[in-house]
């Protein structure tokens, strides 16, 4: 009896300790958001003395800065890039996973190798190439860079997912009269929702939050993305922190929303290939 009580007590202490640790981690993670939101509702003076709230920063943000335009630019670039990444990675992933052809292993190895190349090491050649093609300061230029950077990982993820789909299923569709193209569209693609969601969320967060590519390839104020716009705001001679905080919150909101919507699929997608 005494031993049972001791076990229960030990279990409670362990649970309590874990809970306390998780609380500390949650505070560390959430405090920046709280700080951002809290200070977004102050004016300069209120920010300086850290008391009082007002919506003046929000009015300034939406009336004096091209936030809507920048949000639209970010959305457009993000959406088109992700669509292209999905189009390439799903078809390539399916081909790597399910079609037998000479050299497929080698090509897949090259795709995986591309994952290891850091963005910083290829950004200058990319800039030179796009410059030669006249694509600097165009949406297409930035989109192509994002697609080139995002496709290897997405292809790797999709190929891994399609490898998990039984070959019998693909062959059954072929026997049922479908070619490989329609088998991909009617069978493989509808079954790959978790992987599609994973690629979408990861690429959305990556592209939406990216600064370097936007800064280099979209220097024209009309084509700036939200992150470039915020960077420009903070690099001025007098930076309004409350306005910057409001802008940061606006910038973070879509990524958080996308994550929350696809969260369930994301977990499934990231753990695929780890067993049944």
């Amino acid at each position, binding site marked *: 009896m005494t031993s049972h009580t001791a076990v229960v007590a030990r279990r409670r202490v362990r649970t309590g300790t874990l809970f306390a640790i998780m609380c500390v981690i949650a505070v560390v993670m959430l405090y920046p958001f709280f700080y951002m939101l809290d200070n977004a509702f102050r004016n300069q003076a209120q920010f300086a003395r850290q008391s009082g709230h007002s919506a003046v920063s929000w009015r300034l943000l939406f009336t004096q800065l091209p936030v809507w335009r920048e949000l639209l630019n970010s959305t457009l670039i993000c959406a088109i890039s992700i669509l292209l990444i999905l189009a390439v990675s799903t078809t390539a992933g399916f081909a790597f996973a399910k079609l037998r052809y000479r050299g497929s292993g080698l090509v897949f190895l090259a795709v995986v190798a591309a994952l290891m190349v850091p963005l910083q090491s290829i950004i200058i050649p990319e800039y030179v190439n796009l410059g030669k093609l006249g694509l600097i300061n165009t949406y297409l230029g930035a989109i192509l860079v994002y697609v080139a950077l995002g496709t290897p990982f997405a292809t790797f993820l999709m190929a891994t997912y399609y490898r998990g789909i*039984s070959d*019998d*299923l693909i*062959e*059954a*569709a*072929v*026997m*049922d*009269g*479908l*070619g490989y193209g*329609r088998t991909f569209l009617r*069978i493989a693609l*509808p*079954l790959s929702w978790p992987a599609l969601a994973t690629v979408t969320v990861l690429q959305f967060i990556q592209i939406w939050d990216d600064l370097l590519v936007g800064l280099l390839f979209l220097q024209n104020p009309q084509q700036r993305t939200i992150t470039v716009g915020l960077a420009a705001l903070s690099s001025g001679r007098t930076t309004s922190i409350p306005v910057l905080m409001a802008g940061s919150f606006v910038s973070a909101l879509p990524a958080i929303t996308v994550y929350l919507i696809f969260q369930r699929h994301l977990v499934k997608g990231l753990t695929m290939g780890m067993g049944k």
Partner: protein
Amino acid sequence: MAAIVLDGITKRFGDGTTAVRELDLSIADGELMVLVGPSGCGKTTALRMVAGLEEVTGGTILIDGQPVNDTEPRDRDIAMVFQSYALYPHLSVYDNMAFSLKYRKTPRAEIRRRVGEAARILELEPFLARKPRQLSGGQRQRVAMGRAIVRQPRAFLMDEPLSNLDAKLRVQMRAEIARLQRSLGVTTIYVTHDQTEAMTLGNRVAVLQHGVLQQVAPPQKLYKRPANLFVASFIGSPAMNLLEATVERGDGGPQVCFGTHRLAVGERAVREHPGLGGYLGRKVILGIRPEHLEDATLVPDAAPGSVLDVQVELREELGSEVDVHCRVGVDPLHPVADGEPGDAAEEIEPLAAAIVARMDPRTTLAESQSAKVHVDLAALHFFDPETGASLRAGG
């Protein structure tokens, strides 16, 4: 319906492995042909070549006289039932069954009629709106069958469709498949490693080993007149007892001797195994089916020269019969599955001294007991120890 001919087909993979070697097989219109053999014998590869899922390295596959080596799977008009059932998990039972018809531009009313008819035959009507994950193993198997039936194809190919079911359901579904195939009359190639399934289902059974066809025959012929040692040992459960023996001339005709035992096989054995005469003084492999061994006390008129002295090692009660594992005073031989094809002598392991007898349940033989076992001399098999070929007339 269609006749299918495999004319010397060979499959060699890129790594040099030959899965199927010059397989000649002719399947008549409406026939159910079973391909049986141990794992890796090439039966599934042969089936996949007929389906068009595997390229043919050599030889020709003919469907209704037309070579189809270069015909796409979808254009062969063949339906396949997979071991895993391969049901589309995101589609309902109805859509799974209607899938191929939709892509063949079949009118909607006709699709409804055919799916409805198949669902009625397979008792799937209450489940048409369900997804595959909501079905039991047996129901999924029936949906897989239904998907094949609605197409009304020229032939069915079935790749171990019952192997994922439990033993009881397997027996039920086996009967179901046999009944369906007979009522539809569709040419069917059925692959299995289960010799019971092969024997109960097939009009004819083709036994393969290492990609080589060993024998093709109706089930009873295969059992009673195996062409070689491999077929003799593969078909039948428990397996045929194989013993190395010497043929000698006795007073009443030829005798086979092993250890201290002499079985007076008589002239009848020579008539049925004309080759046996040439083995006088030489070794043969003697084959005895377990059911041809009986407790001698239950055979009152047992002829002299038909009884073996054995030591009982194990008694297994099966209800309607009893399997008695015995040891005889001679080295028996057992086939080994991974020998080289055609090299029967290397497939024999002259070590174990056990034989199995399937006896009448009235037998009182108990473990560790010395006993006399009667051999049905009219049902013996003889094989050449070098080639493994049967010495029976006509193979």
